[in-house]
């Protein structure tokens, strides 16, 4: 990697479910697996806790990509939380793309507490993807610029 490539360091917010992905991140750490420091983890009690507004808000605060990690469908600590997340996020992602946000800036991934390796791999891949997309300027200028 040349120095030029390092110039852009995206800000990535990762919403992680307390019961699975957060522990998955922990496992990735204790297993000494590397994932980029650009990823800022926000712990939530359940992926269903993430209001679509949170995702918009993270973008407003300067995030270039947002990833939401939850338990695999069927494994929710609260039985059904992630089923609702799944429906909600499908609509939100679709709407965001519809108004012109690049594909892949918002992502949902199911990571269990035992999948430290998957967590690290997902984060590496996601950061690379966002790095390729560049800064998130579109949402910033969606209004009031002509």
């Amino acid at each position, binding site marked *: 990697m040349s120095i030029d490539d390092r110039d852009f360091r995206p800000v990535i917010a990762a919403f992680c479910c307390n019961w699975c992905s957060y522990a998955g991140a922990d496992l990735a750490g204790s297993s000494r697996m590397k994932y980029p420091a650009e990823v800022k983890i926000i712990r939530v009690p359940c992926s269903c806790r993430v209001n679509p507004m949170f995702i918009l808000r993270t973008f407003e605060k300067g995030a270039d990509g947002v990833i939401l990690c939850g338990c695999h469908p069927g494994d929710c600590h609260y039985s059904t939380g992630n089923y609702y997340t799944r429906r909600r996020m499908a609509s939100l992602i679709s709407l965001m793309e519809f108004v012109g946000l690049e594909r892949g800036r918002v*992502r949902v991934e199911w990571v269990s507490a035992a999948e430290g390796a998957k967590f690290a791999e997902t984060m590496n891949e996601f950061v690379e993807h966002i790095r390729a997309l560049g800064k998130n300027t579109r949402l910033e200028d969606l209004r009031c610029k002509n």
Partner: protein
Amino acid sequence: MQELIERAKALLADGTVSRVLGWRATDTPFGPEPAFFESGEELNEFVYNCFCGANLSKYLIESSALEGKTLAFLKPCDTYSFNQLCKEHRIDRGKTYIIGVGCKGKITVERLHELGIKGILDVEDAGDTLTVKTLYGEKSCPYSDAMLERCHACKGKEHRVADEVIGESADTTDTDRFAKVTELEQMTSKERYAFFQAELSKCIRCNACRNVCPVCNCRKCVFDGNAFDSVQKANATEFEEKMFHIIRAFHVAGRCTDCGECSRVCPQGIPLHLLNRKLIKDMDAFYGEYQAGEDTSTVSPLTAYTEHDIEPEAGKGGNE
């Protein structure tokens, strides 16, 4: 129209209802406004014509808290909103008396202006053609040319709920309501962005779309601050400005009956219904067809789930 007034007067006189919700004539021939009438005398100002596009169901939330029944005149499309509000327990069905009124599509003065008809003094609606008396003489145009966008994509002229129906309806559907959405989906992401940036930049944040939307009825809206009176409406952060339309559309996802009021009232002419329709189109495709407000018992797709729903990545806003 006379028939509606007579019936309303009769129901007021025999005490079945305490007030009437309808449209009142204003200074201009093209601007009837929603109004409550409490006596037979006031009803003389009642009007129902081709400009009565306003959806009255939202006002019934307010009147559900009052004593006695309210008589409301609802067009076929308004009954969907009414059902949706009953489902959400915002309207007390027992406190309403619904008279379904016939509808053959509603027209808008903006469309007449676009057609070059200005200085309107009076509008005479005779079947398929519209004769407009203006300051510059008499002009005419086909009725459907002056119709609201939503009437071209009408859901049907059957009243979903009504205690009685007065008047005839005529079918006005002549386009696929998802045509524009599909067209946008086929554009590249960049083109779509350019389209929405141009449209949304026109917004002056008057909040009319929020205020008129029947399902936007939270006591305390996320867009309102804690300040007093009109200052409350000022946006607290820049964030609100940018995301207003995404948030607004998402807040009514699964509840939007596609009544098209948001686009009708927009003073800047932003096609706001496109965002709502995109969500409806997606939910139809992912979870099976669902029409909010069709009845008072079905469950919205976003408040339900199955174990084998599609994954969020499947949600596509269109081409890349």
